[in-house]
């Protein structure tokens, strides 16, 4: 039961983070929140008996991907104002 509640909480957080990632004005916030989505997902994976996946998701999905995004953002800094920013 506790597990279920935890899952619901995690799901809610990840959904909120995902929506935030879409609607937020700043790209950097979006990147971070998408990382949060991944992180929540990896915790969820631990709970549903998939530790391999959880590790990989944590390392790649939430870790490396975010870094890659940040590096990309660095390259395009000083961009002309875009409508989402």
């Amino acid at each position, binding site marked *: 039961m506790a597990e279920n509640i935890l899952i619901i909480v995690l799901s809610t957080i990840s959904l909120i983070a995902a929506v935030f990632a879409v609607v937020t004005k700043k790209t950097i916030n979006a990147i971070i929140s998408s990382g949060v989505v991944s992180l929540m997902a990896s915790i969820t994976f631990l709970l549903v008996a*998939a*530790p*391999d*996946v*959880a*590790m*990989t998701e*944590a*390392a*790649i999905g939430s*870790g*490396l991907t975010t*870094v*890659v995004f940040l*590096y*990309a953002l*660095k*390259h395009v800094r000083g961009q002309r104002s875009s409508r989402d920013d």
Partner: protein
Amino acid sequence: MIKYILIFLVLIGMAWLFFPLVVEFFTPDITNNLAANYVFGSAADLNMPNAVTAVVVTYRGLDTLGEVTVLFLATAGVGFFLKRKKHMEGIRRPGSEILKTGSEILAPLIIIFGIYIFTHGHLTPGGGFPGGVVMASAFLLLLMANENFGFSHGIINLTETISGIGYVLIGITGLVLLGLNHFLDPRWLGLGQWGRLFSAGAVPLIYSFIGLKVGAEMSGLLDSLQSDGGEQ
């Protein structure tokens, strides 16, 4: 405006498309036949506790080979796009003193941890991919700390090439030693004792190659990304 309505409708439509999948979904009580076979086989045939690894490295090894290739491809692609112009190193901000010192201490530790993860992939959760990423994170750390950290491309390339070709060659070894249908079969090496590091045939070897390759590829990827990205 019409476009937004259409987008809204499309999203609703996709949800509607997915809906029956949810309705029909139930969490089963027993695993299906194939899964059972995998779990049984990983222990019985391969002498490997981690069934996921058994599936990833052996049963569906070709997928993993492809996966490594995808990563290699992405690295090559990113490298291709963000080609470094000679002598046009981007100027990086130097990291703080603490970061520098810390990274010097931590990096070897992280690398060793990464090696641990991928060598024990057949026993514990983890394996080549997380292990590789962990190794790459050490590289990242060094990259952030030292402004002049020039990672030798030769080493990355060499690691990539050797581990990649090694992986393929191990696969072919199975083919040569065991026969037509034995590509990527790890059993040409002794299965060893249950639960030991050197067990489950060539699996640790394969996972090591994968780990090294992933590590090298991720490092290459990060390296390409942090570079200036060519001409402006």
